[in-house]
């Protein structure tokens, strides 16, 4: 269970990007986060695995408080949080297998990683997962030889290799064409079910959010203003989420403050 309480993130001295935000994700649900650019979706996701340092508040994953962890403990916690990126973030010059195994870097010693001496069970697991998403025959290909959809599959397998307790996906389909995009969304939904894994997806495509996820969280400038099942997301809710601009919201806040 992921439990976020009173989360605030402020860059520098400006207005906070996240304003005392609360969010709980239980079980194996697939949750999408929607909202216009600048609403804080990406910051929210990155606070969870501490790629972005939260200013205050609490983030608890299955009983572990994440915000106070440092060094080795933080790395151990990050192993349990898989992440899929918009730009895939694969190591282009390495093979698909090396990219997939890089999801295990938190578990194996550096010398084993450098010598490519991966444990047998990791290799077996990699082949199983690559088989599952249909990229096993690419194991020895360089990552930059693959198409966008195939690359994102590598990204998904890499995240799953971490044996995660939750999967975060930061606009995983934004660099893909519509058809590939649907395939990846379908894949994420199916894998969540198969692996009993909660998935949190930032997404711009509201139609896909409605089709592929169980719950939609709508954000507007650092706050959650909608949190319900997809069928409850009507035009009025959509207008609330997407109306105005982050900038206008910001100036409103300034007026309130003064």
């Amino acid at each position: 269970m992921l439990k976020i309480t009173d989360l605030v993130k402020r860059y520098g001295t400006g207005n906070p990007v996240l304003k005392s935000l609360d969010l709980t994700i239980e079980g194996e649900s697939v949750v999408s986060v929607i909202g216009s650019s600048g609403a804080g979706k990406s910051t929210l996701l990155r606070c969870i695995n501490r790629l972005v340092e939260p200013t205050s508040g609490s983030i608890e994953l299955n009983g572990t408080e994440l915000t106070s962890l440092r060094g080795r403990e933080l790395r151990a916690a990050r192993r349990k949080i898989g992440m899929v990126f918009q730009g895939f973030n694969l190591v282009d010059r390495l093979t698909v297998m090396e990219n997939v195994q890089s999801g295990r870097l938190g578990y194996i010693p550096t010398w084993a990683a450098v010598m490519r001496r991966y444990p047998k069970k990791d290799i077996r697991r990699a082949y199983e997962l690559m088989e599952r998403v249909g990229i096993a025959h690419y194991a020895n290909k360089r990552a930059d030889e693959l198409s966008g959809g195939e690359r994102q599959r590598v990204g998904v397998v890499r995240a799953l290799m971490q044996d995660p307790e939750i999967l975060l996906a930061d606009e995983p389909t934004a660099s893909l064409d519509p058809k590939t995009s649907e395939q990846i969304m379908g894949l994420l939904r199916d894998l969540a079910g198969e692996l009993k894994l909660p998935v949190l997806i930032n997404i711009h495509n509201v139609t896909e959010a409605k089709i592929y996820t169980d719950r939609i969280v709508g954000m507007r400038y650092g706050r959650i203003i909608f949190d319900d099942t997809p069928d409850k997301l009507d035009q009025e809710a959509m207008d609330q989420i997407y109306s105005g601009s982050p900038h206008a919201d910001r100036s409103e806040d300034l007026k309130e403050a003064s």
Partner: protein
Amino acid sequence: MSSTPDTWRKPPFIANRWVRWSVYLGVISYILWVGTSLPVDWERVADGLGRAKRIFGGAFPPSFERSGLLIDGFLESLKIALLATAGGVALSIPIAFMAARNIAPLPIYYLGRAIIIIARSFHPVIVAIIFVKAVGFGPFAGVLTLIVYSIGFVAKMLAERIEEIDFGQVEAMRAAGAPYLSTLFYAIFPQIMPRQIGLSIYQLDSNLRASAVVGIVGAGGIGATLANAFGRYDYDFALAITIVIVGVILISEGISGVIRKRIG
């Protein structure tokens, strides 16, 4: 009649016309003053022409009689260049990581930059003079000199490459909980590897050239052979050495160019 303008001039480099013209005038008059005030003794120039004629006269035809000495000198230069490149590149990698703003903490970054600036600020000949004083005449001084020279170039260029990497790959490793060194090996080394190899080959080529120069001040190699030949007024042998140096450098530059293009 429309009032749309039909003439346009590029805005001047310096907007204020007074500043502009005084800068131009100042630069021109300084150059003129320097040109006229620098002491040039035309009698000595005329004398020198005669001497130059004697040197060139003595140099033709070039003599390859003592080619054994020539080959020994070159092999020594090659050894100096190889050793210095290996040592210099090996030291350059950690220094480059220290001097890359995007991965090094600020104090380490300044330390790394300082090392590079010091290594770059002296011409290899000056460094060679210091090392010859420190460790005596011979190839060892040459190796040390060229190691410093290699760090100045390779570490600087490599640090710049590290600053240009796609940081998303580093982020992905961090998100997976990878420790620091594993992150370096998986997310950064693959990205900088082609540049690293290209720089090493270029530096080997460059060190071979520089080893001829630093030899003249006593740091061993073909430069020492050349300096000796001059010292003994063997101008024909000196010309032979010079011809071979130019030939070898042309060849090594050609080879290194081809290899660097291949790895691209």
